[in-house]
């Protein structure tokens, strides 16, 4: 660079030497000479600028530099091409399980297998957002969520597609990997197809949403991640035209002790494919979510009601839900209680980044006086170690789906069953 500009300078001086006798012949006017001087001054300054340009701007990080005489940085800082800020991630998880209510599991002293392989896309280009996750299980594969969004200047957000329903404790009503009653009744970590607007005003959070239907637009399929009403046999109801509203206020926002309290409402229709009529459903929740130092408390009370437009004579006291390629019935009208407690244990080990221990309890209080309630309690710890994250859970359940003859609808069994579950995953 220096040699090149040096050569260029010498060329200019030589040119000037030639210029002088020529101008003498032409006898230029004073104005012409002054203009010539001005032009040459500009050219010399231009060459000077090129000569004093140091190393490439990016290397010197001149964005952080200031000239002692506060002159403008003369080296042009070329704008880097904007790289799309869309990232691909994922996880691979395995389960190690012992179920005391499955003879083979007990006899083999446990079992293990693939839990899930998932791929994620998250990102934003300008103000347009995208988020998607696809999951592969050994028995099904499905879209977990997928939406396109817009980030407004006031940081509020609009999401369109399959996204999390804003209801109750967010993002999850549990700490453990197995979750609890809200999830298995479709009222926790639920994803549907629709549009959602969310905003934060200081300590206030607001979310409003409308869902046209469940996430797959195929209510006959139970190959889905989150629980919804699904159709099979006599049960031919599906969720549609659902409205959600959620508001929350955080006390002590930005401090080491934040307590969020909030309320949620959900109301929608249930279309029955046999009768062609629309029933309705609604749910309401109040929650408290407090992170104080190393402690975390979650409390929630939920009331829900499904009123399907079934054919005459059919039992309206239960509805059928499905996910993970299976279905079961739940009570049509019930209350749900959630009480979770967690503590973040300081890790004494160099390679263990985090240890969160918890006890999550939830219960389904069915309206039908003759039905046994359903309960689930999970005691466990989640351990983070670089990209490896492991849940070690001891689950005790009474009359819960997936536990022996447990039923979240009517009847069921009165036994407590256990599942020891180690879920080990690599996340990237």
């Amino acid at each position, binding site marked *: 660079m220096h040699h090149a500009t040096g050569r260029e*300078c010498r060329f200019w001086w030589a040119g000037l030497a030639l210029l002088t006798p020529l101008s003498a012949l032409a006898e230029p006017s004073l104005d012409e000479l002054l203009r010539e001087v001005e032009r040459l*001054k500009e050219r010399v300054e231009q060459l000077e600028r090129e000569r004093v340009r140091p190393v490439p701007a990016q290397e010197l990080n001149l964005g952080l530099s200031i000239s002692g005489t506060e002159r403008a940085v003369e080296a042009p800082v070329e704008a880097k091409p904007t790289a799309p800020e869309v990232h691909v991630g994922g996880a691979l998880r395995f389960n190690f399980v012992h179920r005391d209510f499955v003879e083979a599991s007990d006899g083999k002293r446990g079992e293990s297998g693939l839990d899930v392989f998932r791929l994620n896309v998250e990102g934003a280009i300008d103000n347009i957002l995208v988020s998607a996750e696809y999951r592969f299980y050994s028995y099904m594969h499905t879209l977990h969520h997928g939406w396109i969004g817009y980030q407004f200047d006031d940081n509020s957000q609009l999401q369109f597609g399959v996204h999390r329903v804003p209801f109750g404790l967010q993002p999850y009503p549990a700490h453990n990997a197995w979750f609890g009653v809200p999830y298995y009744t479709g009222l926790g970590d639920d994803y549907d197809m629709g549009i959602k607007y969310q905003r934060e005003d200081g300590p206030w959070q607001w979310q409003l949403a409308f869902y046209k239907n469940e996430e797959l637009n195929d209510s006959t399929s139970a190959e889905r991640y989150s629980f919804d009403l699904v159709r099979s046999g006599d049960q031919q109801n599906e969720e549609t035209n659902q409205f959600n509203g959620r508001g929350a206020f955080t006390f002590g926002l930005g*401090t080491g002790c934040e307590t969020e309290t909030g309320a949620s409402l959900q109301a929608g229709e249930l279309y029955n494919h046999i009768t062609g009529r629309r029933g309705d459903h609604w749910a309401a929740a109040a929650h408290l979510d407090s992170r104080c*130092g*190393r402690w975390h408390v979650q409390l929630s009370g939920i009331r829900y009601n499904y009123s399907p437009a079934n054919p005459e004579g059919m039992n309206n006291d239960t509805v059928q839900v499905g996910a993970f390629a299976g279905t079961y019935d739940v009570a049509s009208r019930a209350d749900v209680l959630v009480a979770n407690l967690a503590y973040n244990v*300081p890790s004494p080990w160099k390679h263990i980044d985090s240890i969160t221990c918890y006890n999550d309890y939830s219960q389904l209080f069915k309206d039908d006086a003759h039905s046994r309630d359903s309960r689930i309690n999970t005691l466990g710890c989640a351990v983070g170690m670089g990209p490896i994250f492991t849940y070690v859970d001891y689950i005790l359940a009474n009359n819960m789906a997936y536990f022996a003859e447990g039923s979240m609808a009517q009847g069921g069994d009165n036994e407590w069953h256990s599942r020891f579950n180690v879920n080990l995953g690599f996340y990237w």
Partner: protein
Amino acid sequence: MKRYRSRLLLLLCMLGAHSAHAQQELNVVSWDGAYVKSQILGFIRPYEEHANIRVNVLQYTGGIDEIRRQVRAWNVQWDVVDLELFDAIRACNEGLLEHIDPKTLPDAPDGTTAQDDFIPVSLMPCGVGNVVGSTVVSYRQDKFKEPPGRLEDFFDLKKYPGRRGLRRSPQGNLEWALIADGVATEDVYKVLSTEEGLDRAFRVLNRIKPYIEWWRTGEEAVRLLETNAVAMSSAYSGRLDDAVQRGEPLAIVWDHQVWFYDVWAIPKNGRRTEQAMDFVRYATTTQSLAAQARYIPYGPVRQSSMALLEPELRERLPTSRKNLRTAIELNAGWWSENLDRIAPRFERWADRPVMVPRKLPR
């Protein structure tokens, strides 16, 4: 017309001469905010005029990684660097810095040699001291009815609730933690040298960890206080003085201030070493150091510079008698030997969440 031609040639010759001089420049690396402003106004601008040179001032946040990278690659763009003393010792031991002979430094105006004029510790084989800086506790005056007055108050969340700002580095923080836990000032480094002592310091920091906001530059510390993001913060005393002059409701707790030296150093393998040396000589004259202190109240490391300062200004320096009563000197020698051992542990500790994460991986 001949007259015009001769004028034109004269003008072009002058322009040519000017262009030849303007080629020279120097990259000086320093810190941010009011500190670098004090250097620019105190002696960098005058040096540009004095040496007819352009000085590019680059900002950084400390450490020697970049110097190591440049020196080892023989691609040195940082001609002069303002280093914390412990970093200068480390870089010197690694052979990354030019040796500077103190005999080449200018004498004081009264003829006192530089070696006698400088505070002894501030002259080291690879660096020349410029200021005595200080890290102090600061707080917003509108936050507390009873203002904090002791270092222990920084760790007392019951009496003085609110978030705390701390520099994201172990230096100073571990010393404060031990002192707040009852360790005598003179025993701090003895205790920190043991694993139990280190554990003890982290245990004390654990008490306030959920409330900590980390900062990396001196400007960030002041901004945390100015914007009410924290009720108390560690901060460099000179930056606070600047903020107070601007009318910010901030106050200083001088109790157990941690004072330290900054030094000028010249990375090896540079192309402008002689010019860099000339800059260091200029920047550390009696007048330059005194001029800087007038823009930021840090103690100059030359006794002759101190003598030039007004009594009122001397009282505001970290080195004034009343501010030094319980002060602790950052042990640069100790940190130069222990930083590589402690810094990774500190980073791990700082990274680990205190609160239960809002979202565990699913």
